[in-house]
């Protein structure tokens, strides 16, 4: 970004937009109702703490709810309806929405507890119901934090559901597709941001969790299903990885198109080649392709949270790669050395093939 762009204030930015025929009318007033991510993060953690105490109240004072599946389902559903009503009636009241958030989180826990009591643990029907319940909440409750949290729970329910069906390894590929689908189109993340941005963040958080579990093979060990068949046990992981690769390729082509660069041009082919190399690396070091995708999506949308999470995920996956049991340290070392060497060589090629008009590198990363 140029220094001119950084030094612009709101009024100058509005004037610039007007000069380019992109905006009309007076400068809009500052919208005080918008929360930054710092505030939302604080409120979501506090909302969880509040929900824990409300659950304590239910456990202590309303013991019959814990004893009966039907009572838990009814009380949970009533709690969620109450939260929905609060969010609809008093969406601009901070106290009411924080109360609604805590009520909803506690009620969801009670409702899901009721489902677990009613159905046998590990059955697909249980996870379908949790998934439908959470997706309904994502769509109906228009609170940002609530949407992020319910999207996380819905995504994890999808993962459990696929595993309970024996379809191992594809959940993270599907969620990666969802993540790219949300963040690669400004009609979604910018145009209908109230709905899609929290869904995008929720998918991001769930994906981090899934990749972390995949790295350690927990998905296979903890949730092995009787429905699992040999074919999926052997190829499910490959299908998931192929899905992630396809999403990366599609994302790269979309990002190139946003810059008016054809996929069959010199730059386009270089980008496609880089994606394929990254995918090969990810076969040996799971999670790296997903983390790089997060980083790229963050950059292309100017979203520092996505970039920060992608960068941290990348560092975490590389560090945890040390403990990855599938290959020896010698093989891991070779994979990293080849990847690092290729990246540095690619940088040299970039400097030769696409030299910058004036080399003005920033003094920091």
């Amino acid at each position, binding site marked *: 970004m140029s220094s001119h762009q950084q030094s612009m204030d709101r009024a100058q930015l509005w004037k610039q937009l007007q000069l380019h025929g992109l905006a009309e009318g007076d400068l809009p007033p500052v919208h005080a109702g918008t929360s930054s991510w710092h505030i939302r993060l604080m409120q979501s953690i506090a909302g969880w703490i509040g929900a824990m105490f409300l659950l304590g109240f239910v456990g202590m004072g309303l013991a019959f709810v814990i004893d009966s599946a039907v009572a838990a389902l009814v009380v949970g559903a009533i709690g969620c309806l109450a939260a929905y009503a609060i969010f609809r009636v008093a969406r601009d009241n*901070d106290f009411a929405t*924080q109360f609604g958030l805590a009520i909803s989180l506690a009620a969801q826990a009670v409702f899901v507890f009721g489902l677990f009591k009613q159905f046998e643990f590990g059955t697909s029907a249980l996870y379908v119901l949790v998934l439908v319940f959470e997706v309904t909440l994502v769509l109906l409750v228009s609170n940002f934090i609530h949407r992020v949290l319910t999207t996380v729970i819905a995504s994890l329910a999808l993962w459990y559901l696929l595993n309970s069906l024996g379809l191992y390894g594809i959940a993270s590929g599907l969620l990666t597709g969802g993540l790219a689908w949300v963040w690669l189109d400004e009609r979604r993340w910018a145009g209908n941001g109230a709905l899609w941005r929290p869904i995008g963040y929720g998918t991001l958080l769930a994906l981090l969790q899934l990749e972390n579990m995949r790295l350690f093979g927990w998905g296979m060990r903890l949730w092995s299903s009787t429905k699992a068949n040999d074919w999926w046990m052997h190829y499910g992981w490959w299908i998931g990885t192929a899905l992630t690769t396809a999403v990366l390729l599609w994302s790269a082509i979309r990002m190139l198109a946003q810059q008016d660069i054809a996929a069959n041009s010199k730059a386009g082919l270089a980008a496609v080649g880089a994606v394929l190399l990254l995918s090969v690396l990810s076969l040996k070091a799971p999670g790296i392709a997903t983390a790089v995708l997060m980083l790229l999506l963050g950059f292309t949308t*100017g979203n520092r949270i996505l970039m920060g999470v992608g960068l941290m995920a990348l560092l975490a996956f590389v560090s945890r790669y040390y403990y990855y049991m599938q290959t020896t340290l010698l093989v891991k070392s070779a994979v990293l050395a080849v990847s690092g060497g290729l990246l540095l060589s690619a940088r040299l090629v970039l400097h030769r093939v696409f030299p910058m008009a004036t080399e003005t590198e920033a003094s920091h990363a």
Partner: protein
Amino acid sequence: MHQHRTEILDWIAQGRLRPENWATALRLAGTTPDTRDWRKFLDQLMLWLGTTFCAVAVIFFFAYNWTEMGRFAKFGLVEILIVGGLAMYCRLDAERPAGKATLLLATLLVGALLALVGQTYQTGADTYELFGVWASAVLVWVLIARLGALWLLWLALVNLAVYLYSQTFGGLWGMLFRTEEQIWTFFILNTGALVIWEAAARSGATWLNERWSLRILGTVSGALVTMLMLWALFDAPNDRSTYATAAYVGWMLMAYLYYRHVVPDLFMLAGGVLSGVIVITSFLAIHILDRRSAGGFLLIGLVVIGLSAAGGVWLKSVASGERA
């Protein structure tokens, strides 16, 4: 960049920009990148990722302890890489990222070299000595690199050395390094680093004025002082709990004054609010809850909700004051 992003997204949500203009408006405001931004970003990404991968590859290689390779070959390899990295640094412009990346590479490789010394000669040295010597050996490079990330790495090495020291001597000097004393040690260490870093950033070292690294350090310091306060609350009253309370109140006050009035930072203020909510909740839980009190849970739940909502209202007013 982020400020304009918020503005443009607000205007889109308010219907002040037409859908066909969204992409152009986002680009014009510098929110989304143009081709030149992409070129610069990919250049940086490949440099830092490539450097880190190469350094980690060397560390993994020595951790594998390949017996086929003689010890002189191993020492030769890592030493050539370090000297090569430093030679590159001398050739490259020290102010450019590539120069700084070579110092990062050399810094990480010194760790591999020290681990190799311990592995080969079985010196009997404790692990904390490895990290302590590592941190001391690379200090000069960290000083000349003028790179925030490298300072964070150096601080992590010092923290690790102190932690391992406490683990090693925990049995011998149990009184000195009980958990509470460990938290105090890390709190003093990291808060000292935070204060020095903030002061250096204010006094003109612009390369240190990267909010993300200061926020990481601030979060560590704030989390530790909150842990001390919780320890004091849950422990029987004693001298140490008085010191912890004084440290907590002092930290919160200083953080408020500094991050509200000197260097406004909403992230740090939000962290302070969350810390306050946690401490007040714990205080109430200790004094109100008992096994038969369902009402106590409800009351505390409502207090948490009220406090966090009030904190949110205050933070929003601070944010809109900054934006206006």
